[in-house]
C-alpha cells in the first residue's frame, strides 16, 4: 500500500477515477485523459504509469484485457473492479482529508 501522502497515491487516485468514468481505456488513453481533464496541468510520466497500472492490476483494483483492434494491432484495455470501486472511495476520502488539512494549514499560517 502506498503511503497516503505520496505522489503515487495521487496517481492511483487519478487512474481509478478516470477508469470509473470511462471503462475500458488503454494506457495511452488514460494518460491523455488525465492530461486533458486536468486542463493540461498534470502530465503523467509513461515511466510511472505502467508500473502503477501493473501494480494495481496485481492488487486486484483494476483488470486488463487484450483486444485486437480493426487495424490488427493488440492493445490492453483496463477497467475498474468492484474492489477498485471501494479503493477509489477510500482514496477519494483520504485525498479530501489531506487537501482539507493542507488548506487549513495554508489558511491559518
Amino acid at each position, binding site marked *: 500500500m502506498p503511503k497516503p501522502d505520496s505522489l503515487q497515491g495521487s496517481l492511483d487516485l487519478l487512474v481509478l477515477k478516470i477508469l470509473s468514468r470511462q471503462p475500458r481505456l*488503454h494506457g495511452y488513453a488514460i494518460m491523455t485523459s488525465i492530461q486533458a481533464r486536468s486542463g493540461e496541468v498534470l502530465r503523467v510520466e*509513461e*515511466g510511472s504509469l*505502467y*508500473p502503477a497500472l*501493473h*501494480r494495481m492490476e496485481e492488487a486486484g483494483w483494476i483488470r486488463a484485457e487484450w483486444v485486437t483492434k480493426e487495424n490488427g494491432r*493488440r*492493445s490492453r484495455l483496463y477497467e475498474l473492479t468492484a474492489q477498485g470501486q471501494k479503493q477509489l472511495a477510500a482514496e477519494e476520502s483520504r485525498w479530501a482529508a489531506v487537501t482539507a488539512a493542507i488548506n487549513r494549514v495554508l489558511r491559518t499560517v
Partner: protein
Amino acid sequence: MSLWSRIANVFRGDRLSREIDEELQSHIEEATEQGRDPAEARRAFGAALQLREESRDAKLIPWLDSLRADAIFGWRQLKKNKVASAAAILSLALGIGACTGAFRLIDALLLRPLPVAAPEQLYALARQGVGPEGKLETFDGWAYPAFQLMRAAAKDQAELVAISYSDRTDVTYGSDQEFEKAYRQYVSGRMFSSFGLRPALGRLFTESDDVKPGGHPYAVLSYDYWAHRFGKDSKVIGRTFRMDKSLYQIVGVGPESFTGTEPGTTTDIFIPTMMHPGAVRRDSTWIRTLARVKPGVALEPLAVKLGAVSRAFEEDRAKSFTNMPEKEIENYLNQKVLLEPAARGVSDLQSDYRRPLAALAVLVALVLLIACANVANLMTAQAAARAREMALRVSIGAGRARLVQLVLLESAWLALLAAALGAAFAGWSAPLIVSMINPPDNPVHLLLPADWRVLGFGLVLTVAVTLLFGLAPALRASAIKPVSALKGGEDPHARRRLMHALVGLQTAFCFMVLFVAGLFVATFERLSHQPTGFSADRVLTLETVTESPQSPDNWEQVAEHLRGVSGVEKVAIASSALLGGWSWNNFISVNRAPPKGVLAYLLSASPGWIDAMRIPLIAGRDFRAGDTCPGSALVNQTFAKEFFNGENPVGKQFDMVFDEGGGLHFEVVGLVRDVRYRSMREPILPQAYFPFNAVDDKSALRARDYGMLIVRTSVANPLAMGSMLRREVVRARPGFRVTNVRTQTEINESHTLRECLLARLALFFGLVALLLAGVGLYGVLDYSVLQRRREIGIRMALGAQAGDVARRVTVEVFSMVLAGALAGLALGMAAVRYIESLLYQVKATDPAMLALPALAIFAAALLAALPPVIHAVQTDPLTVLRSE
C-alpha cells in the same frame, strides 16, 4: 488469488515480459497515431528495460523469480560438466539411498509405533535376574496363572493383556492332505478392545471369549491374511479350520493396519489364550504380558507391586523344587520385574537387530559424508574455475546473498537428483535386506511403507546434504573480491587447504568404515568356519507329525521305508535337529548326589543317528534296537568332562532329576565327539542323548506324535528330494505327515545369517567408501597439479628432478591421508566397544584388523595419486611457460 497469480507468473516469465513489451509498444504506436514524434514518444519512456523489470516485479514474486532463474542457471551449469556432475550425483545417490534404506529398516523395525490407540501407554513385562549360566538375563515369557494374578493385582493402575509368541503352525481348511502354514498368536480376549481396534469384518474377541480353558474355539484373522489367503471374501466368517487337532471357527477379521505385536512377523490367525494347552500350566512360560498403564501412574511402584505378585507365585511353585540347587532357586526368586516401553511392539527381531542396524546406520552415514566431501571438493574446484564469472557478477551489482543462492541452488540440484536416484536405490535395497534376514522358507515380514515419515527423512537429508557440501563453496564464492579475481590473483592456498582438510576427513571416515567392515567380515568368517562336530552335507531334516500318537515301531517302519528310496543313504529319527532352534535341558545328578548347577542339554535319537549325522563314536557303542529311555544314554566329551571328570564315562550312571522331585536313571553306553547343539557362538554344551524309544513307569513304550526324520542322501542338492520324501512318508504309513523340510546346511547357516548380512553390507559400504575416497583424492591432486602447472614448469626449467616434483605435489595430500588414517584408527577404536557384542573371536587390537584397512587406504591413495603425479612429472616447462 493475487498471490497465486504472482506465483504462476514466475513460471511464465518470458510471456510476461513479452506482454509488457507489447503493451509499451502499442502505447508508442498510439502516441504516434495521435501525431507525436515516434522518437520523442520512445524517449518519454526512459529506460524501457528498467520499466519492464519494474512492471515484472509488480506482477510476480521477485525472490521466487530469482530462484527460478538461478535454478535454470544451475541446471545449465550441471549439464556443462556432465561427467563431474554424473559422478557427484551417483556417489551422493549411493550415500543418500543407503541412508534412506537404513532409515526405512530402522523405522519399520524399531521406531514406528504399533497402530493401536495410545501406543505410548504400552509396556512389556519382563523379568531380569542371574540365569543358570551365571549371567544377567532378561526374559519376557510368563506362565498364564502368574499373568492372571498380576492382572488382578494391577487392575487399578494398568490393564494387562497376554499375547503369545507368534508361531508358525499347520492349519487345514479341508482334508488332512491340505495342511498349510500360518502364523498364530494366542491373545487375551480383552486385547482388541484394549488396543482400540475395530473389526474389518465380523467381530473381534471380547472378555467372554477368554473364560474357560479349551472352551472358545474361535479365530480372528488378520486383514493381511484375509486378503492374501481368501481374497477378502466376506463369506469367510463362519468357516472352520483344523489346527492342533481342534476345530476353530472364524468369527472376524481384524483392522487393516494391525499385524500383531511383533515387528518382523505378520500374525495370520488370532486365537483366545484359553485355547492354549498351557493356559492352566504353572510351569510353562508361553506368553508375553503387555500392560497398558493408565495415565499418571508411576511405573516404578507398579513394577515393584507386580514383582511381589510374581515372586509370591514363584515361591509357591518353588516349594516343590526339591532337586534344584539352592543357589538356582535363590537366583530364580530374586528376579526383578521390569516394565519396558512397548509402544513399538516387542519382537526377537528387534532385540537381535537393534545393534546391527545402528552399526550399519553409522557406516552408511559415514559413506554419505565421504560422498559429501567429494562433492564439496568438486564444487570448490569448479568455483575456482568460475572465479572470474563470480567477480563479474559482483561487479555488475549482484549481492552476496544472491551469489550464495546461486551456488547453493546448484548444490540443491545435485542433491535433488541424487535423492531421486537414492530413493530408487532405497526402494530396491530395503526389501532385499529384509529378505536376507531369515531363511527363505520362514521369511521376515516387515512392512516397509514409503509414507510421509520416509519422505520427510529423505527431504531433511537432502537439505542437510545440500548445506553440508554446498554452503562452504557458496560462502567462499560470495566472498570473492572482484578486483583481485579479475586480475587473476586471489590466494590459491586457502582453497587448497579446505580441500586437503576434506581429504583428511574422508580418509578418517573411510578408515573407520573399512576397519569395522573388517571386524564384521572376520567375525562371519570365524563363525561360519566353526566346526560343528557333525556333517551337514546332503542331510535333509523332515519335521514329521502324526494325527494320533504312534508307537516307536511305527516310526521305525516309516524310517525303514525311506531307507528303501533311491538316493537315500541313511535314515534316523531324533526329537529335534541339531542347531534347529529347539532346546531341552535338565539338571543331572551323578551317584545320587545333589545336582551341581550345570545344565545338560538333551536330545532323543534312534539307533544310527550318530552315523547319519557322522558324529564319531569315541568309546562304547551306539544305541541298539532294544535300548529305551530311561535306560541307556550316549554322552559327549564335554558331558564326560563336566560330570565324570573326564574319565571314560562308558558304564557309568547318572540321573536326570526333575525340579519337583523324582527323575530318570541312565547308564552311559557310548561316548561321542562334541557337537554344536544350540548356537555357533557359545562353548560346546554338555550333552546327553537318550533313545527315541521311551517307556513310561509301567515299562510300556510311549507313543509319539512328533519326530524329526534325519535323512542323509547321496545327491548334491538334497532339497530337490524334499517333496518326493514328503509323499513317501505318507505312503509309508497313513497318519504320518511331514510339516517342514529343511536341509541341515540351511539350519547351520541360519545361525550366521545376521553376521553374513552384516559382513556383506559392511564390506560393500567399505568398498564404496574406498572408491569414493580414492576418487576424491584423485580429484584434489589433479586440481592442485593443474593449478600449480606454472610453478612446476618453472621448477623444472630450473632443474628440478621428477622425484622432487612428485614429492612436492603429493607431500601435503599424503600427510593429510596419514593424519586422516590415524584419526580414523582412533575413531574406530573408540567405536568398537559399541559393536563388541556383534563380534566373535575378533579383537579390535588385532594387528591384522588394523593393517588391512591401512594397506587398502594407502594402496588406493597411491593408485589415485598416480595419474596426477605422472601428469605433473611430464609437464613440459617450455609449453607451460610459453602459454603464459
